[in-house]
């Protein structure tokens, strides 16, 4: 096909692909179209014999958002990879620096849209530290209660995605049913299904109401059995277990060096949980275990999350029993101007350590707002875990790390 525009008769249409092509198709443009900037990039984008690049994303069914991974493959084997981020980058940190302290909270919500409360919390906590606010105990209990519910919802979704990336169609819908119940429940508490915007500086937005409590009680009565039934589809399935066991193994030393946290770190055997390691809120008063496993493979990450769901249910139960009476908001002026200073707050979310570092310059806007998201660091370790596996396993590894692109691309 060596057609040129000059040789053709009639009108050239802008839709005609031949108009755009003046040489024969078949030669790929070199990737990247600019000279390599680092040695690593130069090394990655040099192909050896028998290798080829394949783009996973930015539109691909199993990249959990708009992530692009350039895979270098040899047949079906992944040789190397280069994640390309930034498709969802909104500049939340810059936006927060241009909004006042109350407004900044609502920018934190959409960071990790499956577990929004955990994104709000570190920001709110850091602001409270800057302002030296004492949060009422009832507010703290409500925070713990709602965020643990959100953790269950997030992990439920993780199990669905995990199965979907392995080709199972059904678990994702079952877990969405589970998540939907929790999300509706939280909607009756916070007013929104997804971006709750519930935590305020010095407390929470609204007290527990009857609708929430009745939904919660109804759900709690059957949550355990329902979750048990749902996971029965995967946990005992030979195909699932055989694909996950021994895949993407990481030891605890490497996990710490990769700055991992949360379930992914606990799956390697490090019992690091900020709720215990660096207690915040009312967690010192609550009883729960830190589930760990030592294998460090995809199955371990999956099972650790399952255990966490059970622990979360336990925490919710204790919260309901110990819920104190009192105000839900501290007394605060309407315009917040903390004195100049710095504050750091980290919490344990469903994916690991969510943190915020805030610098105040005495005005009503944060001078610098640094948002730390665990998904970002976990996604980084796919470069370590994927090479040497097959393409199909690459997807399983990524699903087991459970990154959310909204948090990765801040």
């Amino acid at each position, binding site marked *: 096909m060596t057609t040129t525009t000059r040789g053709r*008769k*009639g009108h050239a249409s802008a839709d005609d*692909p031949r108009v755009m*092509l003046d040489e024969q*198709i*078949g030669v790929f443009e070199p990737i990247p179209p600019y000279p390599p900037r680092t040695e690593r990039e130069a090394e990655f984008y040099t192909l050896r014999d028998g290798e*080829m690049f*394949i783009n996973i994303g930015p539109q*691909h*069914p*199993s990249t959990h958002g708009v992530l692009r991974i350039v895979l270098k493959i040899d047949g*079906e084997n992944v040789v190397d990879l280069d994640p390309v981020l930034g498709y969802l980058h909104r500049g939340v940190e810059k936006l927060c620096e241009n909004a006042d302290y109350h407004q900044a909270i609502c920018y934190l919500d959409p960071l990790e849209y499956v577990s929004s409360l955990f994104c709000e919390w570190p920001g709110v906590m850091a602001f409270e530290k800057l302002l030296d606010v004492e949060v009422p105990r009832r507010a703290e209990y409500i925070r713990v209660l709602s965020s643990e519910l959100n953790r269950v919802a997030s992990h439920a979704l993780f199990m669905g995605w995990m*199965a*979907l*990336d*392995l*080709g*199972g*169609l*059904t678990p994702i*819908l*079952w877990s969405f*049913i589970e998540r939907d119940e929790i999300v509706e429940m939280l909607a009756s508490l916070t007013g929104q299904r997804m971006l709750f915007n519930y935590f305020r500086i010095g407390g929470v937005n609204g007290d527990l109401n009857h609708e929430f409590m009745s939904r919660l009680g109804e759900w709690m009565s059957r949550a355990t059995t329902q979750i048990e039934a749902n996971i029965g*589809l*995967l946990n005992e*399935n030979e*195909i*699932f277990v*055989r*694909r996950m066991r021994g895949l993407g193994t990481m030891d605890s030393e490497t996990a710490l060096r990769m700055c991992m946290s949360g379930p992914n770190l606990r799956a390697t055997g490090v019992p690091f949980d900020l709720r215990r390691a660096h207690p915040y809120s009312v967690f010192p008063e609550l009883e729960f275990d830190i589930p760990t496993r030592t294998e460090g493979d995809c199955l371990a990450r999956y099972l650790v999350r399952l255990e966490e769901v059970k622990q979360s249910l336990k925490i919710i139960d204790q919260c309901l029993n110990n819920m104190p009476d009192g105000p839900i908001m501290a007394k605060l002026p309407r315009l917040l101007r903390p004195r100049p200073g710095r504050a750091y707050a980290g919490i344990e979310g469903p994916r690991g350590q969510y943190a915020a570092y805030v610098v105040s310059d005495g005005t009503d806007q944060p001078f610098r707002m640094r948002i730390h998201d665990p998904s970002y660091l976990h996604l980084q370790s796919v470069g370590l875990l994927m090479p040497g596996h*097959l*393409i*199909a*396993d690459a*997807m399983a590894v990524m699903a087991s790390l459970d990154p959310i692109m909204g948090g990765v691309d801040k």
Partner: protein
Amino acid sequence: MTAMARTWGRLTLAGKVIFTLLPILAILTIGLIAVVVLFGGAILDFLTTNLWLVRFVVAITAVLLMSIPTAFLIIYMEMKVIALMNLRIGPDRVGPFGSLLSVVHGLKVLMKEDFSPTGVDRIVFTLAPIVVFMATVMALLVIPFAPGLFGQDFNIGLLYFFAIGGMSVVGLLMAGWSSFNKYSLLGGLRSAAQVISYEIPLTLSVVGLLLLAGTMSLNQIALNQSGWFTSWYVFQQPLGALIFFIAATAEANRTPFDLTEADSEIVAGFATEYSGMRFGFFFFAEYVNVFVVSALIVTLFFGAWNAPFAWPWPVALNLDPGSLGIGLLILIAIVPVIATLLLAAPFWLASSRVKGWQALVMGFVLFNLLAGAAIVGIAYIGLDWVAGLFWFLGKTYVFVFTFVWMRGTLPRVRIDQLMGFAWKWLLPASLLNLFVTAAAIAVVAPR
């Protein structure tokens, strides 16, 4: 002259082809009419002496015609059954319980633009779906649906089936190679590796059955299994049936062996670049393939068209309606009226709120239902092909349901596990099955 040239230039390619063909077609039609008029008798004689030719043409037409509704039905089943297992409702808008949704899908792919992306190998790209579809539909030819209701009774029917089944992989490879897309290429190569590997256990697993049956004609195998369900081959070849089922799942590219179109890995495999009716062909071929594979499992191991129990009493329905003479005419005219009135009466008498015409409509509907049931019942008892078709389709759709059920439940295996399973487990097991069968035959019934 210039006007004609300009008109010609404005025609699209299809228009040019049709414009050229139309006069030729007209001349051919006239010629055909002339031939029929002149040599009609001779042709009729030829056809009556060579009835197999007529039978062949009719069979091909029937198979082609039935493949599309079958695909529609299975697509609907897949949507609905998986939805119900997912605790969803599934299609429920078009037609009763959404049953026409797959038809709408079919119309949709027909109406889409016939589009081929830049850089594809046009000829191979266009041919690939046709090859896949034809290979699948051709396999339907040897399936014995009922006594006397099959396309062709080859004495090498099973061999033909495997040969034709192996042809579809050529189409998949063609699609994968010509699509100018790495996902497609990976999908095509995966399908080649998978189908070729699973051909071997698939073929070897039925060798034991062939030793028992002593024939490769599917019709004969079906006849061998008549009587009670204990004579089905699944009870003599349980391991063979299991291996055949697993290998057939892989052969039909169904979950958990659907690696060729693993959407979470290689977007849609070989079909990534396809759209419109070309994709429709792949889609239909996949579901017709499910039907074919289920039908073959039923034919080989589950007694084909035979009912699971032998009919307990001899049936001799010797109806001769002609003997009634003019009475038949009166019967046809009067019985519906009387029956309708009789059936309407209870409704009319039951409540004063039921109006007369409503009662009559109800009576008519009831009469029709009863008459239909009677006709079906008589046909089932009297015509053995109706009974055979009933049992055959029933059993086949049980297996189709199983395939759909597996898709709703199981995750996908990995490619190395897939290949390892075929070569390390299925192949030795099928060889073992073969040896055990041969030894048993040698011991029990030496020739």
